[in-house]
């Protein structure tokens, strides 16, 4: 991306965040976007979360068996799912599924002059199109992640019980031990949860803004729409992975 494009990207992000708190509020659009970003992504996120949890349990059981420490499978699956894999995997899936959809929809609105039409009807396209998608993504991404984490840990439970023979009660006790070991914020909120939910919040923002940015800047007809979707998926996925690293550093510094 060129320097100017980077500036435009963050300009759009800043404007959209500012407009979240400015009238008019398009509540109906936000709900509709929450449905298409959140509810419609549920199946794919749950499916991948479940299998990720299972494969984590399977791999750790093999490694842990060498040290006779298979009872700690729950702890490892939980640590990986809550802090890293849950947020990142869900975000990458949503970037592919939703980010591309946002870019395609807004991009085709751009090439068929519907964005100009909004402008000429006296409506700011950022307020009408970008803000509802951003708000919906900021809300739904953490929700999807919680569900993905839960199902993933559940998947670990299946493998731990079926392959390794760890009783379900023991498994879930180690899960809780892991969560508690991270410490609590304000006495009640597990620090792991705060870390695990800050990330999807940020990733949701990245997905929505990236999709909208490439959608709004679509040029060159239907081919342009195709380019916009591809770029969205690539840029959003790469950004998620890079931001994840730096965010982890910050969160570890803050919460340990």
């Amino acid at each position: 991306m060129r320097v100017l494009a980077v500036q435009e990207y963050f300009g759009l992000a800043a404007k959209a965040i500012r407009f979240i708190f400015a009238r008019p509020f398009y509540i109906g659009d936000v709900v509709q976007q929450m449905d298409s970003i959140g509810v419609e992504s549920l199946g794919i996120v749950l499916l991948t979360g479940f299998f990720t949890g299972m494969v984590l349990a399977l791999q750790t059981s093999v490694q842990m068996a060498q040290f006779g420490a298979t009872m700690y499978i729950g702890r490892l699956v939980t640590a990986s799912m809550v802090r890293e894999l849950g947020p990142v995997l869900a975000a990458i899936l949503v970037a592919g599924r939703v980010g591309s959809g946002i870019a395609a929809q807004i991009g085709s609105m751009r090439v068929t002059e519907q964005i100009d039409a909004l402008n000429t009807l006296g409506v700011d396209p950022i307020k009408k199109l970008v803000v509802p998608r951003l708000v919906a993504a900021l809300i739904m991404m953490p929700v999807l992640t919680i569900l993905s984490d839960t199902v993933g840990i559940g998947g670990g439970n299946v493998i731990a019980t079926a392959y390794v023979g760890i009783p379900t009660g023991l498994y879930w006790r180690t899960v809780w031990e892991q969560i508690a070991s991270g410490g609590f914020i304000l006495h009640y909120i597990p620090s792991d949860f705060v870390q695990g939910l800050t990330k999807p919040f940020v990733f949701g923002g990245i997905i929505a803004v990236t999709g909208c940015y490439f959608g709004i800047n679509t040029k060159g007809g239907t081919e342009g729409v195709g380019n916009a979707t591809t770029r969205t998926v690539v840029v959003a996925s790469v950004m998620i992975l890079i931001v994840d690293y730096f965010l982890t550093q910050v969160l570890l510094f803050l919460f340990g």
Partner: protein
Amino acid sequence: MTDIPPDTTGAPAPPEHEEERRALPEDDGEPRLRRAEDELRARFAEELEESEEAQERVGVSREAIVELEHISLAFDRPILEDVSLVARRGETIVIAGESGTGKSTTLKLILRLLRPDSGRVIVDGEVLNDVTYEEALVIRQKMGMVFQGAALFDSMSVFENVAFPLREHTTLSEDEIEARVREKLEFVDLEPDRVMDQLPAELSGGMKKRVGIARGMAVNPAIMLYDEPTSGLDPLTTGTITRLIMKLQRELKVTSVVVSHDIRSAFRMATKIALLAEKKIVFFGSPEDMTASQDRYVQDFLGGV
């Protein structure tokens, strides 16, 4: 327009008066640019004199509502150079010209989707050059725009499309909105009960254009702008759309600025035609004057009629 004596915007000025006004630009030492109206009058005096009397008979007011003054605009190449244009209240101006001569650009300037490099755009007394983006959104509510491809919101039904500007900018109740949508759809000769629940994708090209017109006129704007309203339509539908634009002018006294290269329908609906060529306006006057024009380019352009 307040600083111009009323007689200069209306009936043709006597020749000596004309001379006086031409001398005006020098009066404070600096050569000053003429107002759009004067500029056009100076250049196309003959054409305008005759057409104005005829226009007043059909109810065109003397008051200018859209003015482009000495507009220049360039992107990677110059698009418009020193273009002046005036539309009076109730008038239908057709901006004609070959493809790529900046016709659609003039509409975008009027809507302040673009800003000129130099010159002023004045809509209903407000100079658009100085307004902010947010102010422009408000001013645009005075104008209804019909896009070349209709640009209907394809995720919304016909009803939602026409109701959209009403929901955004008015406090009408749902019943009032429905009544208004029905009224506008009937105005454009569509049966409300048949089309209201349809999606834009289910409509024919001509129907989309008509819904586009209904949406553009939903908040009863004083100005309607059309970008190639008849391009890509069959001759019958072209006739329907042309009649509609005329109906808006006749019944609602709406000012229309139409960008079109369809000179046949331009002749039917225009009170004045502006011909753009080589980044400039080469002709401005009534359709009759255009036919009578001896200008080589004008004659070439009309060659196909």
